[in-house]
């Protein structure tokens, strides 16, 4: 299970912590929490929901234990980094395309980190493929509330990213 969700968990850690050393610490914390919780997984929810719930809980714990990081980069600076990203699946993208995609993703990740926590949680879970109901179960809120937060999150992200890249 850990190997299957490795990429997803790495992205979640990155959405809560930008400092590499602390991000690694958070990821390690999540990995251990999952490892401990695995024997209690009873298929009451999907494996993905189970994994993301534990990861999100650990991320909250991480935020509570440390000084919040200072935002050093504004989004006006980010706007200067706008890049053209190809969104079609390409079995063998060129190196410059790969770099552009990576920059676009990095920019999105920074914007997500700048979102208020309630909106960030919902956006990250949506990006990771959870539907409203699953997100509601992870966060302990209603489905309607997930929809409202998602709407607000999308609006805010749109403002920050300034339209299609």
């Amino acid at each position, binding site marked *: 299970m*850990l*190997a299957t969700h*490795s*990429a997803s*968990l*790495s*992205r979640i850690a*990155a959405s809560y912590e930008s400092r590499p050393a602390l991000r690694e610490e958070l*990821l*390690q914390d999540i*990995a*251990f*929490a*999952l*490892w*401990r919780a695995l024997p209690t997984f009873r298929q009451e929810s999907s494996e993905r929901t*189970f994994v993301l*719930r534990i990861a*999100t*809980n*650990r991320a*909250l*714990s991480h*935020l*509570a*234990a440390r000084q*919040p990081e200072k935002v050093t980069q504004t989004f006006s600076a980010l706007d200067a980094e706008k890049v053209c*990203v190809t*969104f079609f699946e390409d079995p063998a993208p060129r190196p410059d395309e790969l770099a552009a*995609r*990576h920059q*676009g*993703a*990095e920019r*999105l*990740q920074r914007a*997500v980190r700048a979102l*208020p*926590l*309630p909106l960030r*949680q919902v956006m990250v879970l*949506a*990006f*990771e493929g959870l539907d409203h109901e699953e997100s509601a*179960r*992870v*966060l*302990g*809120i*209603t489905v*309607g*509330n997930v929809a*409202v*937060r998602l*709407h607000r999150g*999308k*609006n805010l*992200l749109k403002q920050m990213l300034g339209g*299609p*890249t």
Partner: protein
Amino acid sequence: MTDQDLDRWTAEWQQGTPPTADLVRMARRERRLLLAWIAVDWIFGAAGIVFAAWLWFVLDTPAMRFAAVGIVVLIVAVLAFTVANWRGVLAVDRDNNLDFLAHAMARCRARLRYIRFGWKVLVADLVVIAGAMLLEVRDEGPIRLLGIVLMASTATAAAAGILWWWGGHERRRMERLAAMQKALGAEQESGHE
């Protein structure tokens, strides 16, 4: 705004996968670290008990017996907390976010209570140390008094320093948890507006 935005961002998000981490290795490393922490607690506890036994059986004066009892009481209090704390640390991971936050706050409050208890134990320990020193002076004279005072002051200062730092750390954690709970709860209340 359309869901095309969400689809586009989702695709972009998935492309931003960092280098794949070996999570199994990480989990094992974290487990080793945790076990090392727990082992250190028990090793220090065992060493303290051995030291108390040495005071009691080898030095064998009323003052040293007094000190030995004080040390054993402290060690038992610390180890009892250690066991309770480690059991609680990862016990509620499967809860949803809001329940998890509530449990995290409850654990934080328990640690703050324990720290307040620690200050009381420290004051009680000072009374014990003062009593032991009086007995020492009465029975043996002031020859070893300076050494005992130095040792007691160092140990007391170290314990007070740890309690001070830990108390501040826990209070800040509590403030952040409360802020998070308020933010997430407020969103929940206003979610259907």
